[in-house]
């Protein structure tokens, strides 16, 4: 079947190029959804903005860094605390929202003085913190403020601080993907190479594209530690600003989220000759393969096999308990992009689940190449799905559970369909062996909860 024009899209026929249903014998040389393209006016897109991609996804994770949002306070508030990425220093990054709180008068007269005052106030209020990200937003970009000049002036006045400026206002790209790109490229060109890390192991890596969602980094860090591998920088889960300035000394870049951070891995390869190894950190089989590849690279295969055996002995019986009970369940994955391809085979192989629909908010065509290669026939693949399309696809494929974000999750809840937070997780971590058991548990709890049906009853009639 070629690209699919859903009934709800007859008035927006361009949407046909964004929806695909895979049939037997087809591959991505025949059909590939258009993606990373501007949202078509008239659709109820669920996308985030470019600024959000830089701040909420990557920069805001750093545990020792003030995140100064140069704009109206809403830009700061709306990207604060909505994703759960803890740290081992008391969650500094989750406790505060920083903003220059730009008003109309600043739009008229300029906001650079306000920015400088806000930077100094923030450093003064938090004297142990010496690192800062500054983000432009739509309003301060449009009035032409120059935050890099302001940051330079502050660094000249206070040589003990360092500041990184992300010039990626919300309108800079078609989705949050642009924010990932701008932050990656700015960081590699302006900050990497400025700090020399202390090397304590013959095996060094950067672990790229993991943001410690509910402790993902902690799980993976335990594995690296057991293998004797030193992680110079997690980009950016539980990481410090200066750790990420020392990425140039690693022997290998291990990449999990290729969409949000593949850019910096590519640049580290080009600039410093560090190879890029892409792995899947979700799912038993894929996680084991990823670890084995790292083991082969460093010649530490025995240690890796020992670790895998230990982890599988501990967690496989628990996973199998859920597999028995989830076999044949139908799942939809409507997340950002990479989790579609990270998860679709993993849940099928490890849990016997069928993934019947997948939608990506900000994936590029390379993400669709991966997911269509891994996904099932008959499955619906959607780029930048809109609300009406979600309603129609639910009727078509009748999923037992939908893994998605809070925005689409609210829609799904109103239909009384089990929903699990596929972005920030319900009860994670989801990475690694134990993480996939957590995912299975949340899946099982969702499809067996009586609440969904009860929520649809008229309580007056029931009584």
């Amino acid at each position, binding site marked *: 079947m070629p690209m699919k024009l859903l009934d709800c899209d007859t008035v927006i026929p361009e949407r046909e190029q964004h929806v695909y249903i895979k049939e037997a014998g087809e591959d991505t040389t025949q059909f*590939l959804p258009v993606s990373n393209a501007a949202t078509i006016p008239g659709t109820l897109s669920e996308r985030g903005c470019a600024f959000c991609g830089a701040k909420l996804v990557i920069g805001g994770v750093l545990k020792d860094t003030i995140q100064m949002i140069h704009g109206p306070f809403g830009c700061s508030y709306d990207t604060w605390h909505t994703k759960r990425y803890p740290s081992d220093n008391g969650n500094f990054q989750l406790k505060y929202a920083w903003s220059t709180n730009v008003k109309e008068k600043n739009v008229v007269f300029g906001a650079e003085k306000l920015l400088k005052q806000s930077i100094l106030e923030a450093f003064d209020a938090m004297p142990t913190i010496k690192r800062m990200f500054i983000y432009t937003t739509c309003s301060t970009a449009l009035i032409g403020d120059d935050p890099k000049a302001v940051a330079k002036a502050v660094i000249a006045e206070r040589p003990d601080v360092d500041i990184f400026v992300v010039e990626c206002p919300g309108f800079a790209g078609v989705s949050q993907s642009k924010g990932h790109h701008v932050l990656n490229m700015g960081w590699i060109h302006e900050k990497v190479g400025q700090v020399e890390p202390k090397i304590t192991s013959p095996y060094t890596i950067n672990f790229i594209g993991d943001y410690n969602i509910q402790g993902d980094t902690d799980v993976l860090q335990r594995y690296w530690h057991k293998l004797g591998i030193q992680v110079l920088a997690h980009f950016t889960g539980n990481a410090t600003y200066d750790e990420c300035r020392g990425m140039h000394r690693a022997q290998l870049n291990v990449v999990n989220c290729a969409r949000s951070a593949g850019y910096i891995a*590519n640049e580290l390869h080009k600039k410093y000759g560090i190879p890029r190894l*892409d792995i899947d950190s979700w799912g038993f089989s894929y996680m084991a393969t990823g670890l084995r*590849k790292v083991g082969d690279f460093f010649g530490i295969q025995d240690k890796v096999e020992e670790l895998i055996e230990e982890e599988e002995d501990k967690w496989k019986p628990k996973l199998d308990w859920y597999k028995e009970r989830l076999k044949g369940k139908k799942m939809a994955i409507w997340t950002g992009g990479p989790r579609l391809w990270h998860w679709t085979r993993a849940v099928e192989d490890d849990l016997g689940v069928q993934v019947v629909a997948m939608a990506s908010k900000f994936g590029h065509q*390379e993400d669709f190449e991966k997911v269509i*290669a891994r996904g099932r026939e008959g499955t619906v693949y959607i780029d930048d799905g809109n609300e009406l399309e979600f309603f129609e696809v639910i009727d078509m494929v009748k999923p037992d559970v939908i893994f998605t974000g809070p925005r689409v999750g609210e829609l799904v809840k109103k239909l009384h369909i089990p929903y699990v937070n596929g972005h920030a997780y319900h009860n994670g971590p989801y990475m690694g062996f134990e993480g996939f058991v957590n995912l299975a548990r949340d899946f099982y709890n969702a499809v067996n909860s009586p609440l969904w049906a009860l929520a649809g009853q008229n309580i007056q009639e029931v009584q």
Partner: protein
Amino acid sequence: MEMIQQRCLWQFVSRAHDREENIDGVLTLVGILLTGGSPKLETPMDRLHYANANNLVSEIKTDLPWLGHLPKDDLFAVVTGAIKRIHEITVKKSKNGELFIPGY
């Protein structure tokens, strides 16, 4: 082909030149490893391709054991065919509009 497409992320990196380097590097080593050869591992990229190839070979031996019993020439023909087909799917006939963008 299905196994390579489903299991191997190295064929799907962002740009055509990186895909080509990975496809040739990994699958050439797969042929050497399947025929009992000893690959040279002199550079970091050699070790990267080896890591990817060795894991693919393990999966081939488990899921496609007949491949290991082919005569050497036939096996190299299969690998050469796989290299050609993966190049077609992921580079030459790919509909991915970002493969040839300069820079990352």
